[in-house]
C-alpha cells in the first residue's frame, strides 16, 4: 500500500471516528431516560433526525424536558416530531449554514406563529451573523401577546438600524414588564420601540441620493 493510500485511509478513519464520537456524545444522554420504552422511542427519533441532517441536541433536550415534566411516551414522541418538523423548516428558511442555536430559535419562532417569510427576511437582513437573539426577542414579544406581524416589523426595523443585543433584550424585557402591569401588548411595543428607535440612526437606504457636495 502506498503512502498516498495510507493517508487517504487515515483521513477516512478520522472522519468516521469523529462522526461516531459526535453521535455517541449526543446519544449518551439517553441514559438519563429511565423508562425503557420511552428511551427506545427517543433513540429511534434521534437516529431518524440525525440521518436527515437535523441537529439532535434540541430534540434530546425536548425529550428530557418531557421526562422532567413526567410526560407520556406519546407526548414526548409527538413533541419531538413537531420540533423536528419546525427545525427542518427553519433550516430551509435560514440556510444550511445556520447554527443549531438559530435553528432552535427559528423553530420556537415558528411555533408561536411567526411567518416563514419573516425568518427569510431576518436572514437576509443579517446573512453573516447569528440571529438567534433577534429570533428569541421576536418569539418572546409574540408570546407576550404582540401580533406576529407587528412584532416582526419592529424587530426587522431595529435590525435595519443595527440595534444592539442589549437594546433588543431591553425591548423584550420592557414589554414583558408593561404587559404584566396591564398595558396592551401592542401599545407597549409601540411605545418601547419608539424609545429605542429615537436612539438609533436612520437605516441606510440605497435608494436615497446623498446631497451633492457644494
Amino acid at each position: 500500500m502506498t503512502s498516498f493510500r495510507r493517508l487517504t485511509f487515515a483521513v477516512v478513519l478520522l472522519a468516521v471516528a469523529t462522526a461516531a464520537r459526535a453521535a455517541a456524545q449526543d446519544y449518551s444522554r439517553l441514559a438519563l431516560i429511565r423508562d425503557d420504552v420511552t428511551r427506545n422511542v427517543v433513540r429511534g427519533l434521534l437516529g431518524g433526525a440525525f440521518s436527515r441532517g437535523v441537529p439532535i441536541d434540541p430534540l434530546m433536550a425536548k425529550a428530557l424536558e418531557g421526562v422532567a415534566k413526567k410526560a407520556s411516551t406519546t407526548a414526548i414522541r409527538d413533541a419531538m416530531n413537531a420540533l423536528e418538523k419546525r427545525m427542518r423548516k427553519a433550516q430551509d428558511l435560514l440556510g444550511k449554514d445556520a447554527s443549531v442555536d438559530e435553528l432552535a430559535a427559528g423553530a420556537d419562532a415558528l411555533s408561536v406563529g411567526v411567518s416563514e417569510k419573516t425568518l427569510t427576511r431576518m436572514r437576509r437582513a443579517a446573512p453573516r451573523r447569528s440571529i438567534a437573539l433577534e429570533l428569541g426577542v421576536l418569539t418572546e414579544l409574540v408570546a407576550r401577546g404582540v401580533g406576529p406581524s407587528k412584532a416582526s416589523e419592529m424587530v426587522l426595523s431595529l435590525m435595519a438600524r443595527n440595534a444592539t443585543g442589549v437594546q433588543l433584550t431591553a425591548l423584550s424585557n420592557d414589554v414583558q414588564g408593561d404587559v404584566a402591569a396591564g398595558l396592551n401588548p401592542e401599545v407597549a411595543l409601540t411605545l418601547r420601540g419608539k424609545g429605542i428607535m429615537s436612539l438609533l440612526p436612520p437605516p441606510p437606504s440605497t435608494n436615497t441620493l446623498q446631497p451633492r457636495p457644494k
Partner: protein
Amino acid sequence: MIDETDELIQRAARSLRALPATNPLATARIIAAVRARRAQAPSRLALVAQWMREPTLSAASAAFLAAAALVVGFVARGAVRTVDGSSPDIATTSEMPLPTGTAPALPTANTRGEGVAVAFLFEARNAKSVAVVGDFNNWDATSSPMKRFGPDGPWTTTVRAKPGRHVYAFLVDGSTVVADPRAPRARDLDYGGDASVLMVTTP
C-alpha cells in the same frame, strides 16, 4: 564617398566577416552533455507519478496527524459545547451578586468566556435537592445542581447560557418541576406545566 573597391577596405571587410575559429573538442563535449541531460530529465507525468510514489508521509506520521486532529477537534468541540457551570472560568455563586427581595429580577450575569454566566436563586427550605433545568443545559437534571446558600438559605447555582431566549424551570427533589417565581412565565405548548423565560443578551 567610400570606394568599396579599395584594397584596404576589402581586407577589413573580409576580416570582420570571418567566424572565429572553434575548438571541435569543446563543441563535442557541449553536445554530449546536452544529450545526456535530456536523456535523464523525466517528463511532467513522470514527475507526478514519482511524487505519488515517494514516501512523502509515512503511515506513522499520518496516524500521528490523525490522532492530533482528533484530540484538537474533541477539545475544541468540548469547549464549544460545554454549557454547564462546571467550567473553571465561570464565577462561582459566592462571587456573584445575587438578586434579593421578591421583585421580578433577571438572574445576574457576567460575561467571561463563551456565552454568559447566569446566577440562579430559588427558595425551597424543605427541599433536599434542587437543580435548574432548561434549554441552556438541554434539560439535563444532572448538569446544574444547586447548592444551599447558608443553612436555611436559598438554593443557588450559576450556568452559562448563550444569547437568546431560554425556557427553564427548577427541578425539586428530582421529581417536581417548578417555575421561577421571579421570572416571566413561559407557556408550554408541548407538555403543559410551568416554566420560566430568561432573555440573555450579548456580552
